[in-house]
């Protein structure tokens, strides 16, 4: 529903002038941090892949678990957060007509907080004071500085979240009776989930700080672990909503189609926000201290997250089919060939979506009680999150770059960059099929995750895993190549590509689509429902852990 130009100028004067320069700076800064982090994290990933297969021996001053801790934290926390903020702030600014000055300040404050946090965390890891991996399960105790660094990172993200809430509120006040633009709606959903999802882990980290300093003697291991996973898996779904924002909002425009249903997209966001936080419990399916009944309830809560994804699958393929048929695609599958496969802005997210078919199926296996017992803490899990995070989320992020970076830097996507992007997508896909595929298979044979190179005294079972580890190392090599290409492309488009105006693609709805009802904007209600679901999931086990707690554990350093 394009508004007449007159109305656009009246409502959102900044929108007609393209990107707001001050807002673009925020996104450029975050994206730069994201892709430098990706390069470092990716390099560490390759080091791990080679070490694990016994192809590389690390020097005495750097061990596998330091590399693994840094790889996890840099890529899972920092790269994704920095990219997400850069992308969402650009789209949010674009669709609501520029950010408020104070919101801009909050984004910069967040930027500084995150950088300070990263510096503290990385320093402790380098000093071998925090080889506790991304999950930092107590009673493994890192240096207090490590936990303080994590607090800074969280505060940085909260600052950006608060900025979005303030600007959203301001927009709504000035646009009574209107629904927010779809992209802004997604942004709200993401930051609300991010905020509530990180509350549990923040409480955990705040209890770990005095404990690691020796002020508090012991810690309740199960409470910490449960609080961690209320965040750990929610984060995954934060990325997932971010990826789907690009699928729903931008892809229809890129392929010359229309948004399938604005309302359906919003219902999917609402469901993901409400249902998500208990999903993390399936990481504890084979833990002691939790009854089988509680575990089964959580299987149900995790499985319910699959439902909105199945709605998305339908909506996206409906968009593809309609766009393909409009371009003359005939027969049952003719439309499929009419899609713009040579456009990286489509190809990368399309591969990402296809990867979610095995990725989502793998997720259902992981969450399903007794089947989890087969794969828990094996390489299978590593294969699973490299196909879901590494392809479904990250390849969508990569695809976004090919229009987002030119948009914020007032440059163009040149044909050469498009071609490079296609090559990047292919390298990434092949690398992930090899790496994730071999990880899935060797995991079923029992190869454990988070373990450096070992043959367990040349046990024949362990020796049988080595060939798969070679394939993993080869896949990891391709992936680093893919990262180098991507980082080059991003900085080329940011600073060197031909100048010009690039569009932020925002899809339009079908002419006969239903109107989006205003009730979708009732965030206070969605938050109450979110809290109710969290209460249903967590009150019983947490009270049980606290009331029936064994004596706690003192801090232990085993590395």
């Amino acid at each position, binding site marked *: 529903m394009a508004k007449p130009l007159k109305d656009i100028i009246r409502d959102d004067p900044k929108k007609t002038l393209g990107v707001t320069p001050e807002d673009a700076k925020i996104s450029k800064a975050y994206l730069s941090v994201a892709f430098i982090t990706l390069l470092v994290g990716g390099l560490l990933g390759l080091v791990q892949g080679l070490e694990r297969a016994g192809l590389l021996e690390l020097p005495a001053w750097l061990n596998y678990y330091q590399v693994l801790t840094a790889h996890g934290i840099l890529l899972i926390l920092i790269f994704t957060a920095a990219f997400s903020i850069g992308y969402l702030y650009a789209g949010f600014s674009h669709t609501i007509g520029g950010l408020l000055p104070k919101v801009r300040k909050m984004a910069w404050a967040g930027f500084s907080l995150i950088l300070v946090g990263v510096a503290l965390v990385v320093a402790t890891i380098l000093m071998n004071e925090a080889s506790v991996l991304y999950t930092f399960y107590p*009673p493994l105790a890192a240096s207090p500085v490590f936990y303080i660094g994590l607090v800074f990172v969280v505060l940085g993200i909260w600052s950006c979240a608060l900025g979005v809430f303030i600007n959203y509120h301001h927009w709504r006040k000035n646009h009574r009776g209107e629904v927010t633009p779809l992209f802004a709606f997604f942004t709200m959903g993401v930051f609300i989930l991010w905020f509530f999802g990180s509350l549990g882990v923040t409480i955990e980290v705040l209890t770990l700080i005095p404990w690691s300093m020796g002020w508090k003697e012991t810690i309740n291991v199960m409470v910490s672990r449960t609080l961690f996973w209320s965040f750990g898996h929610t984060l995954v779904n934060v990325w997932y909503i971010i990826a789907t924002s690009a699928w729903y909002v931008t892809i229809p425009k890129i392929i010359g189609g229309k948004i399938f249903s604005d309302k359906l997209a919003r219902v999917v966001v609402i469901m993901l926000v409400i249902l998500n936080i208990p999903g993390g419990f399936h990481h504890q399916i084979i833990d*002691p201290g939790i009854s089988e009944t509680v575990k089964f309830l959580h299987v149900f809560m995790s499985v319910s997250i699959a439902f909105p994804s199945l709605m998305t699958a339908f909506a996206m393929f409906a968009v593809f089919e309609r766009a393909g048929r409009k371009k003359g695609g005939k027969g049952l599958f003719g439309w499929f060939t009419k899609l713009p496969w040579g456009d990286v802005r489509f190809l990368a997210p399309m591969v990402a979506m296809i990867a979610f078919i095995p990725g989502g199926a793998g997720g259902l296996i992981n969450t399903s009680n007794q089947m989890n017992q087969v794969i828990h803490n094996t390489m299978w899990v590593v294969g699973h999150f490299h196909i879901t995070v590494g392809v479904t989320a990250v390849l969508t992020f990569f695809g976004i770059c090919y229009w987002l970076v030119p948009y914020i830097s007032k440059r163009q996507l040149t044909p050469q960059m498009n071609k490079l992007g296609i090559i990047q997508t292919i390298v990434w896909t092949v690398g992930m099929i090899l790496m994730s595929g071999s990880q899935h298979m060797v995991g079923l044979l029992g190869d454990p995750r988070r373990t450096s190179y070992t043959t367990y005294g040349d046990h024949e*079972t362990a020796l049988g895993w080595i060939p798969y580890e070679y394939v993993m190392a080869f896949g990891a090599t391709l992936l680093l190549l893919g990262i180098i290409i991507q980082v080059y492309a991003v900085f080329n488009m940011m600073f060197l590509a031909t100048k010009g105006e690039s569009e932020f693609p925002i899809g339009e709805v079908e002419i006969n689509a239903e109107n989006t009802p205003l009730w979708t904007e009732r965030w206070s209600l969605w938050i109450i429902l979110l809290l109710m679901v969290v209460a249903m999931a967590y009150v019983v086990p947490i009270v049980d852990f606290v009331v029936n707690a064994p*004596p*706690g554990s003192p801090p232990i*350093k085993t590395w």
Partner: protein
Amino acid sequence: MHRLEEIWLGLSAGVLVLFMVIVGYQAFALGMGPPSHKETIDPQKVDQTEPFDKPGVYETGENEYEVVMTLQAFGFTPNDIEVPAGAEVTFTMTSKDVSHGFQVAGTNINAMVMPGHIQEITHTFEEPGNYLVLCNEYCGSGHQLMSTEITVK
């Protein structure tokens, strides 16, 4: 809503419900639920607490065994367990320090063993052979060395 969309979502919901029914039936009717033992212990007094003051392999019935085991960085006590083929073995375990994972490659034995908690898992070893036991939760710099063997004769 679109008619095809209704069919798709109806089928999706149906498959998920069926999935839950099967998982629930297996867990509760067939007793295939995951290890979920609920006893606790003082993690700093494991050596003084029964039964962990005497870790070892105990015959508890006809071809039934209990292995009382402690896990600590970076080993399993007792080491090198031997049982006859067809033995039903219950492992009763706890950790003396950090979190560990108890996994026997080539079987469905996989359980988290946390300090302060006692974990139990039962398995029947039908096939003779030499099974690799390993820790599958990162527990420190020697984590990759934490393993032992179960010999089934």
